[in-house]
């Protein structure tokens, strides 16, 4: 606590997080799991275990250094499935990744005229001014498209351009990491009250 490091704190409940439900679920949330903390065994309830599991997702992003996620994202956009793209963005896929022609996922979404996808990519911090290998912006691709929804993407990108605000991927729903802080404060007051502080990888 005394350390100058800034930290995030967790707010959660001990028992089942759900409204009254089946005995099976209720029972499950009364169970404890043993986790190893600093060499000490620690009993934690299921809901805290779920939370810790979610918070540890962070380790997965490190795999994206070579942007495999970004390439997957481009493939996802090409597949035309919005759900798939949303999920990838939630898994932290890199929106800056480019294909062999230097196009980002947003260039491709504009090309196929998929408005929802373009919106999701912009929310996740895609650069609307990024230039591809042909020196074209996503807006240029949108204008070239002749599909039935072509105008909507162009209008949307135009509007974004006028706002002139560049979204950072920090305070959005479409990200993987819950927090940027290195330390996490968790108060584990259950049958025994105890406190511990975790440092994530």
């Amino acid at each position: 606590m005394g350390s100058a490091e800034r930290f995030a704190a967790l707010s959660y409940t001990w028992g089942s997080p759900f409204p009254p439900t089946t005995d099976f679920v209720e029972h499950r949330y009364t169970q404890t799991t043993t986790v190893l903390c600093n060499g000490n065994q620690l009993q934690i309830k299921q809901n805290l275990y779920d939370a810790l599991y979610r918070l540890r997702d962070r380790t997965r992003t490190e795999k994206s250094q070579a942007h495999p996620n970004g390439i997957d994202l481009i493939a996802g956009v090409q597949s035309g499935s919005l759900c798939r793209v949303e999920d990838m963005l939630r898994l932290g896929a890199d929106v800056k990744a480019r294909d062999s022609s230097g196009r980002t996922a947003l260039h491709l979404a504009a090309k196929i005229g998929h408005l929802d996808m373009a919106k999701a990519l912009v929310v996740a911090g895609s650069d609307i001014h990024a230039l591809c290998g042909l020196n074209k912006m996503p807006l240029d691709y949108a204008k070239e498209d002749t599909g039935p929804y072509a105008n909507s993407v162009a209008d949307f990108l135009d509007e974004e351009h006028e706002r002139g605000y560049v979204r950072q991927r920090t305070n959005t729903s479409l990200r993987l990491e819950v927090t940027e802080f290195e330390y996490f404060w968790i108060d584990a007051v259950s049958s025994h009250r105890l406190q511990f502080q975790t440092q994530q990888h």
Partner: protein
Amino acid sequence: MEQICINQADEIEKAAQVSIMGEIYRASGCVEVWLGREFHNYSDSTELLLQGVWRLEHARERDTLSSDSVEQLVNDPITTFRQIGDSRIKRVATEWLNTLDLDVTRGWFHAPHLFQRTWFERTWILQEIFMARDLTVVCGRYIVPWDMFLLMSSIVECCRSLLGTIELNTIFPSKLWSTLWDPFDGWSLPSRSMMLRNEPKQGRISPLRLDQWRAECQREGRLSIVSALSLSRNQKATDARDKVFSVLAFWPIERKNDSGIQSIKPDYSLSAEWLYIEVAKGLVAAYGPCILSLGGLSNRSRIVGLPSWVPDLNSQLTSRLHGINVQQLHHATSVTSCIRDFARKSPSGVHITSQNELVIKCHLWDVVAETAHPGLNEVGKNLDGLTRWLEILSKLDGTLEHRRQALLCSLAERPSDQHSNASHFEDWLKFLCFTCMTGQQQVLRDFAIPLGNIQDAQLAQKQEPIAILLSRAKAHFAELGYTLSQETIRDWFDDGTLDSGVTDKFLQWQFRYTDMTRNAMHYGHMLRDINPTRRLLRTSLTNLLGTGPKDAWPGDVIVLVEGVKVPYLLRIVRDGKYGLIGETYIHGLDVEGILVDAQGRGKMRDLCIV
């Protein structure tokens, strides 16, 4: 995970740690709210709700929504969405709603599954979110920044309040609502009547309620003790003492003892009874006898040995009180400063004996002559509730207009009809009768389980044929000086209307229904916000109409307390000592005038409340 330092704690250390928790959350850069996994069964619509929440981020001008817009939305979502015209926020909201499916929005009549999660109910979360600089909600793989969570909540709140009305479609044009307009689809009507019957807690969804207090707490630096305690009363804690300990972070509670003034610190060797009594003493010292409004015996399980005047912090407080204004208290800076010398001054005429009995100066004004069935927002399955009201009403003096006015004002607990409620009242009465008559008991029963507030006995009662009910309703309306038009009677009587599908007749009905519902809701929500479980009563000597808590009985004494604007109901429990039942409202009673008169004539006497 590495570097975890654990302090296995005993009772003393546990208390010490509980006392610094507020500071920890205040010092943290961000508080992450863990709501649990995405779903626990197939009917849980949480995931469907959260999937597209990112769309709402297009409503932002910058990194977050401006705090002004958030505040407006949180305080009054309906008015805000009505007023903002064709703004970015509204466009984005409409777009998001159009991606949801009917099964998700249908459930909004009570509350979306997400908002029924246990996190929202816990006591300790109050300090965790009030102290937090920034908040992020995490539910399974979904992350929702706090401003987006509030925007989503206010959209949901606006929709659920307007579901079944045509206005909803003008605010958020969507195909979704067309099926929900249908008054006979078996959901809309009974759901609305259920919404009215339920306590206000269910009336507003949790995130908005919590954030309103959070904003207040952050603006003022603290909440008033009454607000703080009334908040924790409505949250759940496994340990009754946590109701007090959990608010200490935003309101330090002080007590006077031999060695001066000390603040209460978390200490698990203390009993809940002792804590509650100490808190009540502090409240009396700070606010005077008006804190009686917070106490009262009730059927709910009270902690054994707790005097009736001591607020039971372990039971919910859902009603809006007249005697003490919880909402406004912390707006008044003078109140804050006067509470600073908490426990130093002792209001005149009030003292607490060593047996924890409260002695107050008051005037025994009248006695309750008779009471109606509990429940202000319902007329009973066979209209027997309404029958009883009219029975009581017929004993009052004055003209029909006068008596009707008394009923209207008493139910709403307002001294005069400032808001031209007369037409709303009529439609409200029609609405209640209609929902009662169209016999949607099965749906009511389905709803009763999640909402848990309907009386089983009432459901078990057999319903009489609609023809009998209809003639009864007609007679009752006539008694009140209202006429049920032939058209209405035909509509209500004709089962065909209900099953005929979309015909011209049906569409006509739909429009009339919409109007009626809007008016009915206007009046009904007013009642609901006070406390719909109360009951109508008539006083004995003065023959006035009023309302009291649901535990009020004939024979209960109505007293006026020095310095308090509302009368209270008391009941003799033993040796000439009284138990407190609760606040009452008597229509046409001039409390201050009568008190001055009683004081002048020396009619004030000391009463001992145990």
